């Protein structure tokens, strides 16, 4: 029943409950690009007073709301589930809303740039259309033949678990835009599209695996992946992207022989 369990307080909990920590000075170095003003991008520094437990998104908001309203970026949910705000922070792709200031060494200027490999339209906003085009090209929807059952389709817990990891994708593009192959050749489908193909290829209810594999057998498909693991490192949802790609490759090899 109601057994009190709170005698032992961990240091982490105490720290979390301490409320606002001492504010610190942070320099945010943002790669700005506004073609209405000037055709080339420039780096601009902003000085801020921040709680180190706040997010980089909070810092961007602070700049926009208090210093320079022209700063432009996408954001919505602010807790890592909508995939709006993938950007390059200190050289690595992350979600601004899932990156705490204290975790990106606030002693030095924190650099923020748009993700690579997609056309930059303004400040941190890139053109996402090619990214979504690649996603659409892998037929990301359940394909079934025959008549629908009257109730739900059955699926064992093991079969459900088989593709659990890749269902977490929020299409933030952190992976695809961290991939060296994609920077050089945007024709590559990119890890995000493969992740979403994987989600269906390994779904026991789906019958379109063959078609999807055929698409990914393409010149610009899975074989372009050089297992550089940038995608896996970048994925804010912790999806084992490279592993998923390897599974698709293996499925192709075993199906063809």
């Amino acid at each position, binding site marked *: 029943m109601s057994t009190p369990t709170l005698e032992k307080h961990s240091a982490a909990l105490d720290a979390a409950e301490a409320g606002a920590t001492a504010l610190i000075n942070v320099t945010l170095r943002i790669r700005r690009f506004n073609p209405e*003003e000037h055709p080339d*991008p420039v780096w601009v520094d902003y000085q801020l007073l921040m709680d180190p437990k706040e997010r980089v998104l909070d810092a961007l908001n602070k700049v926009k709301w208090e210093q320079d309203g022209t700063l432009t970026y996408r954001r919505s949910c602010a807790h890592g589930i909508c995939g709006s705000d993938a950007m390059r922070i200190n050289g690595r792709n992350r979600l601004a809303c899932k990156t705490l200031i204290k975790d990106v060494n606030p002693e030095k200027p924190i650099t923020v740039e748009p993700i690579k490999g997609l056309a930059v*339209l303004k400040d941190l906003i890139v053109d996402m259309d090619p990214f979504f085009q690649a996603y659409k090209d892998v037929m990301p929807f359940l394909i079934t033949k025959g008549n629908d059952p009257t109730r739900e389709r059955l699926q064992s817990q093991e079969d459900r678990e088989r593709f659990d990891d890749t269902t977490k994708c929020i299409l933030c593009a952190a992976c695809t835009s961290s991939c060296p192959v994609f920077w050089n050749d945007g024709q590559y489908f990119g890890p995000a599209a493969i992740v979403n193909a994987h989600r269906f290829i390994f779904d026991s209810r789906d019958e379109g695996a063959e078609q999807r594999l055929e698409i990914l057998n393409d010149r610009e498909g899975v074989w372009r992946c050089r297992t550089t693991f940038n995608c896996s490192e970048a994925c804010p949802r912790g999806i084992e992207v490279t592993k998923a790609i390897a599974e698709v490759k293996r499925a192709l090899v075993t199906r063809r022989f």
Partner: protein
Amino acid sequence: MASDTPVDQLVVPAAQAHTGQGLGTGNPADAFVVEPARARTKRTPRRTRTNFEMLAWLFMRLSGIVLVVLILGHLLIMLVLDGGVSKISFAFVAGRWASPFWQGWDLLMLWLAMLHGANGMRTVINDYAEKDSTRLWLKTLMGAAAVFTVLLGTLVIFTFDPNI
């Protein structure tokens, strides 16, 4: 991009650079985006319908495994056991190729390494050449060099005459 051109002197594009769609907003800035090297085109990549890329990929792994044995063996003998370049001479080579075993070893190594390397170079060129024409040129040049080397090497191994 011409950095010193003021924006208002730029030509207003009929199409937006990143989507190719006409906007007609009259905003000169629409001519500008920071474009990546080669952006994905709207159309779905053409299906190749062959297993070439897969076979090439498989070949890289399989040949790699075999090459580990061949090349590391080669290195061991040439550089370590036999004492490095300092020991190598015509007589040394002649001695080795007298045996069909070493002939076969070197031949296989030559072919696998060259095919592996050439295919690897093809990937590298595909990644970095930005224009289709440059790609084609580089690949042709590299391919020709590879074919030449393989043929030359094969010829040398087979027609080698220790009493020349």
